[in-house]
């Protein structure tokens, strides 16, 4: 029995180690410049974890839709006929994202990497883009560092950043009377960056942040964090969590009864999938910033109908953002007549764009932040929901100039 126990214990440890080390297989294939008559769009994102529904496999489909639209538009005049869309899982881990990005550029022949949620992972990919002098259009990561302190010539941030979320949600909620804030945030790049952006926006709007409480990431049990946050009697508890952690926190917030004490919950980053999975009644009335909503106007809705036919669900803003990034990349390739990264970047920089996702969009040359109009949204009450996925009411438009920091303030010194 003794040896059995020892063996069992030892093998349990070994398994745990194996678990932490396991990673998926890399993509095959070699070579692949435009000279091979081939363009490779590589989607690198979370194919299996907490952000799978927000972007994941359906992002690959959205990118394929962009390729189809490009081919339909240009037909015989397209400068490249063979376009591949590949998909790789980075499991939200910076080290895996780093290795995969390097593999994609070197052996996968990737001309551009798309999506990449999880800020720490996105920063690793941005660094690889710089080293390999190939493009990286980030859609799903939010840290301002991508277009700020760690910006580089080959990296663009397409959809949103923490500054936008903070100036949408943080500013508005403070101006509406939520002056005393306590922030709970996941202790990694995204959460820290969000907390910084929110604190700045709240202070500027005349509010105060009494306390910022870090939590482990990922985490299930928020009961004590919430009690602690409530003990300083704030007007608003701001959560900077995303995905499953956000759902855990909201459930436990609703159950904690803090609402009855008049404490409001403000959510830093929320996707439509979060509302869908938790149910509208749990979120009803919550204000949040949505860079794009599928039912915000006829053009968005028409695209969302196509997306629904393709995938069976309505798109999140990340799906639409990836479609836009892929489409504008292909347009730039068409204009440049080559997949040479520097030539394509020259076509992208400074371009003013309007498409399904970008409204009053501009691909800023100074910091490679793609700025555009966004929305402040409110979650509908269950009685107001008229169809599946009809969860949001647009409260106001956030003009690009207000939602995004001015280029001079981004702290980006574009090199290489």
């Amino acid at each position: 029995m003794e040896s059995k126990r020892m063996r069992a214990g030892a093998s349990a440890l070994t398994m745990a180690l194996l678990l932490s080390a396991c990673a998926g297989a890399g993509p095959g294939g070699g070579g692949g410049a435009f000279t091979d008559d081939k363009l490779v769009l590589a989607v690198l994102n979370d194919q299996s974890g907490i952000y799978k529904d927000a972007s994941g496999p359906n992002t690959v489909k959205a990118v394929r839709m962009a390729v189809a639209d490009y081919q339909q538009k240009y037909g015989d005049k397209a400068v490249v006929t063979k376009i591949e869309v590949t998909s790789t899982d980075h499991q939200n881990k910076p080290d895996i994202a780093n290795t995969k990005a390097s593999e994609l550029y070197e052996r996968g022949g990737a001309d551009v990497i798309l999506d990449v949620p999880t800020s720490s992972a996105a920063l690793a990919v941005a660094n690889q883009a710089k080293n390999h002098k190939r493009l990286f259009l980030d859609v799903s990561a939010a840290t301002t560092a991508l277009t700020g302190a760690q910006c580089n010539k080959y990296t663009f941030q397409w959809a949103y950043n923490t500054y936008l979320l903070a100036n949408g949600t943080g500013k508005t909620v403070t101006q509406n009377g939520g002056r005393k804030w306590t922030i709970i945030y996941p202790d990694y790049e995204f959460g820290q960056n969000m907390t910084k952006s929110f604190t700045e926006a709240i202070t500027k709007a005349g509010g105060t942040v009494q306390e910022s409480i870090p939590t482990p990431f990922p985490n299930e049990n928020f009961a004590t964090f919430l009690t602690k946050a409530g003990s300083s009697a704030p007007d608003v508890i701001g959560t900077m969590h995303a995905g499953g952690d956000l759902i855990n926190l909201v459930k436990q917030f609703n159950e904690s009864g803090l609402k009855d004490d008049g404490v409001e919950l403000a959510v830093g980053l929320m996707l439509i999938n979060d509302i869908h999975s938790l149910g509208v009644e749990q979120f009803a009335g919550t204000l949040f910033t949505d860079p794009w909503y599928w039912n915000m106007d006829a053009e968005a809705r028409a695209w969302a109908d196509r997306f629904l036919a393709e995938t069976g669900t309505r798109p999140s803003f990340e799906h639409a953002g990836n479609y836009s990034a892929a489409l504008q990349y292909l347009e730039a390739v068409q204009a440049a007549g080559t997949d040479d990264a520097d030539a394509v970047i020259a076509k992208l920089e400074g371009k003013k764009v309007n498409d399904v996702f970008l409204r009053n969009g501009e691909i800023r040359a100074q910091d490679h932040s793609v700025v555009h109009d966004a929305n402040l949204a409110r979650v509908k009450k269950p009685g107001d929901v008229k169809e599946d996925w009809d969860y949001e009411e647009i409260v106001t438009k956030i003009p690009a100039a207000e939602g995004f920091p001015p280029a001079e303030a981004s702290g980006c010194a574009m090199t290489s």
Partner: protein
Amino acid sequence: MTAILQYAVQGLAAGSFYALAALGLAVIFGVLGVVNFAHGAFYMLGAVTAAVLLDTLGLTLWWSLLAVPVLMFAFGVVVERLLVQWLLRLDPLYNLLLTFGLTLVLVELVKQRYGVSGLPYRLPAGLQGRVDLAGVVLPRYQLFVLLFSVLICALVWLVMTRSRIGMIVRAATEKPDLARALGINVGRWVTPVFGFGVALAGLAGALAAPFRAITADMGSNFAIILFAVVVIGGLGSIVGAVVAGFLVGLVEAFGQAYAPTFAQILIFVLMALVILVRPAGLFGRQEATA
């Protein structure tokens, strides 16, 4: 002072899940010698089942607390008969790999069927809101979870100490060879005990459904802490699993309150300390070393 009491109750409520699930893990290890790596997945299945029962049949939590353990018991019996039993005679490593593989399969199946964003769940009205106990304000549901788990643990303890089945299971847990030598048919109890352990994990999952995100991955982090609990309590010790479960819950809560950055690490620091001082765990028997 009220804050400390509040943290303590929250810690004990969080510990309830660990205690219930670890109890199942300990019983399974004791009788079968199987380190059940799929325990986190069974916990997840319990929560998912509760959510599906609510969604399709409209069964509220009250019914789920009854139905989920029964269903999970049946599922556990099937898993034991179909898979686990064939590897029992071999090195424990085989069942470890089997249950680990089973985890991957179950998690992926749930992901395929229900996605990763999670399933919605609603508390019955009677369990919503808060109670005020002499100045200490607590969510009613947390209090319920705590009392319910203590009740279940007490019931299990009564069955274990007062009934014949319990005696046999305990004998088989502590000294399987001796129990066999005394003519007890240990093998007969293997299947129901496995089912019982799985049912406890499922019950913990159903209890977690109202205030945890119900996703395919909800068991993975839980399982890691669960193994720390079992190691602290002593592998195979039934009392140890329960005591360590509540203890870890408390450490987690006070860690979150006073050293949030280290909340999760503290559990493993505790585990390391226990292993240093008592390698067999708090309630594990110190095996004589030759």
